[in-house]
């Protein structure tokens, strides 16, 4: 074989192996593996990104996930921490008794069992009470802290923010809701039956809300960073600007005793169940449910109302814990660039556009026209949300 032929053969083999490697890397990228496909071919990388984007599909609805889990495994959850999460489950204690034990046991054993059960119930009740009190004491008030006043941010307001320490069993979802109670309307919140089991922080936006919790909750009055405890079974009236904080396990009755509608903005991490609404109660989802993995404890969930000045930019990567974003007013453009700073795509988000729940690295937000843009930003983080300095240019 001549030298030229040998050289061509080597080149052909090298090309083929390079193409095969590029193809394998392409498929790995499609499968979501962290591969550096750009090194092979930028256009191939763009094709992979395009396909992954086209193949994007929503996560399962949290209510569906919880319902199916109940159907498959029943109400008794495995009282064991999943190996892939780090926190303990809080469901039923998982005590399994042989069928018919109470009926066939001798009277003395029954009395002993009853006494033991009573003692156990008492211990659990005291523990629960102490835990709930501890939750209230541990949760600092973050409702007056402003975090991202920067050049380009015309206005920023922390609507609600709280540290959540404990979570209900099952599939969890983060959600921001707005409730409207017409005069005379009632709503039970926080219970599994009401579809709202889980820690909650809420802001009274309008009207006067009467709250009667079945266990202590914390409240803060408008303009005050201090929290006070609202006792169990005692009604308390919350006015516009007041906030309430309810840990997991606390059920409360909300009632509108006034003549004007009550409007409440609520941020919570909840079990995915479907709420049953009473007469005169309206429910709007400010930001739709986002299924989340069981978090390490505690987390801080915060909801901000942010106004972006015309021409200003906000980099998603500079907002720690950015979980969800929704355009309230105006038009927002999300600009995605790759690692080399090249423009990948732009996405326009109008008021009617679905909110965002994922944020690729390199994404920058800017106003879509000459008007300010009003945003709802939700962060979930281990420590202070939005404590970093967003890169904002005017």
């Amino acid at each position, binding site marked *: 074989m001549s030298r030229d032929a040998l050289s061509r053969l080597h080149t052909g083999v090298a*090309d083929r192996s390079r*193409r095969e490697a*590029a*193809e394998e890397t*392409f*498929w790995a990228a*499609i*499968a*979501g593996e962290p591969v550096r496909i750009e090194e*092979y*071919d930028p*256009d*191939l990388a*763009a*094709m992979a990104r*395009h*396909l992954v984007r*086209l*193949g994007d*599909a*929503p*996560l*399962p*609805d949290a209510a*569906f*996930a919880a319902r*199916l*889990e109940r159907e*498959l*495994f029943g109400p*008794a*959850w*495995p009282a064991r921490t*999943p*190996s*892939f*999460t780090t926190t303990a489950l809080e469901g039923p204690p998982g005590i399994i008794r042989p069928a018919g034990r109470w009926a066939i046991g001798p009277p003395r054993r029954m009395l002993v069992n009853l006494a033991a059960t009573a003692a156990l119930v008492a211990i659990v009740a005291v523990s629960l009470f102490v835990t709930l009190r501890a939750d209230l004491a541990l949760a600092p008030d973050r409702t007056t802290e402003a975090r991202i006043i920067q050049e380009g941010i015309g206005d920023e307001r922390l609507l609600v923010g709280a540290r959540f320490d404990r979570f209900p069993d099952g*599939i969890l979802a*983060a959600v921001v809701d707005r409730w409207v109670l017409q005069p005379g309307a009632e709503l039970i919140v926080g219970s599994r039956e009401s579809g709202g089991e889980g820690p909650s922080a809420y802001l009274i936006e309008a009207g006067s809300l009467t709250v009667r919790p079945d266990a202590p909750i914390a409240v803060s009055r408008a303009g005050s960073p201090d929290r006070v405890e609202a006792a169990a079974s005692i009604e308390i009236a919350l006015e516009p600007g007041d906030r309430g904080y309810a840990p997991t396990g606390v059920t409360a009755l909300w009632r509108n005793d006034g003549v004007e509608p009550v409007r409440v903005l609520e941020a919570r991490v909840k079990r995915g169940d479907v709420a049953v609404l009473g007469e005169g109660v309206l429910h709007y989802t400010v930001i739709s449910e*986002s*299924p*989340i*993995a069981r*978090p390490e404890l505690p*987390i801080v969930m915060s909801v901000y109302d942010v106004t972006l000045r015309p021409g200003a930019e906000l980099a998603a990567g500079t907002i720690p*814990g950015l*979980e969800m974003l929704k355009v309230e007013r105006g038009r927002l*453009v999300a600009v995605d660039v790759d690692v080399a700073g090249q423009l990948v*795509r*732009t*996405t*326009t988000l*109008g008021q009617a*556009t*679905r909110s965002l729940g*994922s944020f690729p690295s390199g994404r920058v937000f800017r106003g*879509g026209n000459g008007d300010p843009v009003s945003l709802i930003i939700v962060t*979930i*983080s*281990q420590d202070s949300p939005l404590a970093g300095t967003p890169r904002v240019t005017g």
Partner: protein
Amino acid sequence: MVVTPLLGSPVVEDEADLVARAQHDRREFALLYRHYLPLIYRYCYRRLGSREAAEDATSQIFTQALAALPRYHHASFRAWLFTIAHNVVVDEIRKSRPSASLDAARELADRALEVEGVADRIEAEQTLAMLMRQLSPVQQQVLELRLAGLNAIEIAAVLGRSHGSVRNLHHQTFVRLRAVLGVRHADERLEHVS
């Protein structure tokens, strides 16, 4: 950040052990369920095109998996679960044909437009459903299973084909995708320029 999306975030470190325990105690399967639910649901959603259909199929898949778990003896739990998913989805598509494909395409198109917005309309109009129509059924399955995160060996198990056959399928799908999307290989571009 301590809270991460469900998809892909939990890592089952000892899945084989977990599966073995689940074969004797169905409650242990709940852990696998939580891990695989987003993957299975999104696979169904991509194939069936609507939330309702995806939820129905997902319910069937996990119900069948739970019932069949005592007989499970495969090498890969993920491949086994996706084999069930593949069969359920194929049945659903067969049952709902032809209206479902039209509905699915329409819904996907609507969804793409909603998510992308008018500024990126051209790209949004090219939905996955439209792209899939340019592929053969088996090429579609390869792409869908890849998007679900499976590797070539697992896809071979799901489709009941040899590894070599699936490698060829991958290559054919790759070539077809490049042609459909108008992406030429870097070498071809160089040849064209020269």
